[in-house]
């Protein structure tokens, strides 16, 4: 066991040395025997930075320090407020924080030949504190001043969209998550879950559960059916929030880097199964996920997601439309495609997610990946665990929609 801890630590270190990929780990209290997790994120209200607060006439002087301003060839408005404000001339302050003047200043900047980020930066000084930070952040992003790791994962964007998914988690589906703390805080870990509900909402909800409730959360990466990477906007969005093409090579590389990886061995068979087959697990492929876990020394956390089956009750499908769109299936639900895009709004079922105790595979060693008997046995064991947990939690959840 100590041995295993060592390799995990080694992995975490390697990953940190690898440098450009991940955001620096933030310091926070942790059990003393553990290394800092690689991508600890605190679900703190950083996402609030997008909210533009109403103009406040007065700010406490403590809020003076802003993120460093670029010494641009700035237009007339002075960039720094006076450091030691002896009774501040209120007139002047008001002139500087003039949200109304923002748009004309932006337009003026562009007209003067500045490019958009520079003009935005210059005009941002007119905005009050939070709005100004937002504008400067947007200018920074437009300048390419943000991080994406080698997989295209964009942490800032993830934080930006998190409030929406948290709303879906807490209000829309009222998710109860059980056993989140069983997910190992460090080291290569594979989350294996049932897949249902046409769109990958289940992955995002597991993601929110981990980020919100895990004592040392880390951002999971998830395997996405390659069909999604053929779709405009979907492909670029998926990649930015941590999705990768569902390929064993990608899974192995991510696990070797010590990531938390979500896989759905049922694949499209699970997501596209009819409503009548709900909560019945489909075949788990050829057990490839077990092979990958064995090869990388990852532990497997089986997860049962209850509730995702009801969000799009799939009554039938259209082979013809699926073939026309090149999609793996084209679902017909009570609301889709009858209500068009509105039909894509998922029904507000009640959800329950159980993270089962991790299955430690380190006893087998990587050569077991070649042994079909072991692979099929383990695959079946994981499948049974999830199926059992599904039925248990289905009972515990009670009514589907209330």
């Amino acid at each position, binding site marked *: 066991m100590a041995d295993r801890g060592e390799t995990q630590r080694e992995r975490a270190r390697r990953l940190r040395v690898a440098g450009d990929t991940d955001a620096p780990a933030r310091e926070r209290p942790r059990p003393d025997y553990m290394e800092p997790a690689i991508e600890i994120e605190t679900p703190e209200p950083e996402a609030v930075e997008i909210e533009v607060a109403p103009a406040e006439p007065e700010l406490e002087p403590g809020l003076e320090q802003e993120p460093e301003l670029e010494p641009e060839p700035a237009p007339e408005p002075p960039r720094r407020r006076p450091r030691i404000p002896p009774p501040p001339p209120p007139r002047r302050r008001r002139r500087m924080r003039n949200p109304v003047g923002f748009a004309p200043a932006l337009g003026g900047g562009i007209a003067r030949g500045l490019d958009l980020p520079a003009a935005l930066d210059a005009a941002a000084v007119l905005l009050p504190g939070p709005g100004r930070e937002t504008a400067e952040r947007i200018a920074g992003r437009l*300048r390419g001043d943000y991080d994406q790791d080698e997989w295209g994962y964009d942490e800032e964007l993830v934080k930006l969209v998190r409030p929406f998914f948290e709303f879906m988690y807490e209000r829309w589906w009222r998710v109860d998550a059980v056993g989140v703390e069983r997910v190992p805080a460090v080291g290569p870990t594979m989350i294996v879950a049932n897949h249902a509900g046409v769109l990958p909402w289940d992955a995002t909800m597991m993601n929110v559960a981990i980020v919100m409730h895990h004592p040392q959360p880390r951002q999971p990466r998830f395997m996405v059916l390659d069909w999604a990477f053929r779709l*405009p*906007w979907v492909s670029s969005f998926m990649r930015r929030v941590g999705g*990768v*093409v569902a390929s064993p090579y*990608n899974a192995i590389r991510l696990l070797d880097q010590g990531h938390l990886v979500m896989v759905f061995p049922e694949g499209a068979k699970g997501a596209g199964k009819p409503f009548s087959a709900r909560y019945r697990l489909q075949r788990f492929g050829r057990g490839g996920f077990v092979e990958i876990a064995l090869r990388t020394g990852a532990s497997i956390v089986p997860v049962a997601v209850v509730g995702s089956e009801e969000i799009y009750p799939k009554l039938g499908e259209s082979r013809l439309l699926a073939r026309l769109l090149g999609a793996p299936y084209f679902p017909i639900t009570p609301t889709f495609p009858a209500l068009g895009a509105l039909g894509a709004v998922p029904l507000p079922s009640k959800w329950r997610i159980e993270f089962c105790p991790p299955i430690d595979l380190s006893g087998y060693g990587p050569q077991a990946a070649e042994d079909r008997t072991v692979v099929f046995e383990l695959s079946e064991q994981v499948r049974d665990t999830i199926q059992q947990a599904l039925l248990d939690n289905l009972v515990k959840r009670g009514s589907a929609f209330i």
Partner: protein
Amino acid sequence: MGRRVLITGVSGYWGSELARRLERLPEIEYVAGLDVRPPAGDLRRTEFIRADIRNPLVSKLIPATEVDTVVHCDILLAPEPGKGRRQLHDINVIGSLQLLAACERADSVETIIVRGSAAIYGAEPSGPEFFREEMARHFPLRTRFQRDVGELESYFENYARRHVDVTAMMLRYQPSLSATLESPLTRYLRQPVVPVRMGFDPLLQFVHGDDAVAALEAAVRRPVQGAVNVAGPGSIALSRLLRLAGRIPVPVPGPLFGATLGAAAQLGFPRLPPEAVPWLRNGVTIDVTRLIEEVGFTPRTTLETVREFVTHLDGRSGRGPSDDVVTVAVA
């Protein structure tokens, strides 16, 4: 006794840069360069052999040089002005065949190094990121250039199989980027507005122009058997690259993208090779562990490469006057 090296395509950018570097190494006793036109004047001790690599005559010339290492740089990754698509195929495939035939005759040859391309992996939506060397040909080779590269690689694989004592090394390059480099890609990135495929943001990977040559030099010093990927570690999304470069992306809907590039080329916009269409949609990234660990060469990361390219792009970001772009495109 020092090493004796022959470089094909010595008058091209890659060949002459490599020759310049090898001339500085004391352990290299002799450098010969093969090309149809003489290299730029500043090569000091490279012996220039004027010959067309497609001509059967090379199989008489190469054994006479008694070289132990052949570096094949006479592979064109993109059509150049004056060298059309047909010629590209001739040089890449027929030229390589002639070269291999010549090496069969030359008993002194111990190492063959080829400047190949990562195009063999293909830019596919279902492709994994960070292809390793053994993952070539998972996808069909779709464009002519890809098929050329595939053909070329199989010739070298066959050669390696028949000559187990010869180290046949295939370097698979990602596109190079640097301030001084001229290519369809750099011309594309120098435009003030850049057409991109609507809704797609591929992960791309580049190798710094200097590192691309340095990797050839490292390969000469420490050749290894088989394919080796050459790229800057990491990746960069096209959208971020354009933002860093201060370029304005013009999203073009998917079905029109290829046609738009073609039409833009008619209007004087740099012509991109056909591989660029899937490349700008799906991107390709490759794993460079083998280069770093076995060849012992660590290139600059893709992000560093891009940042350096961007700072030299036009001395300013954003909408600078674009008159220099025109001269560059013509040159």
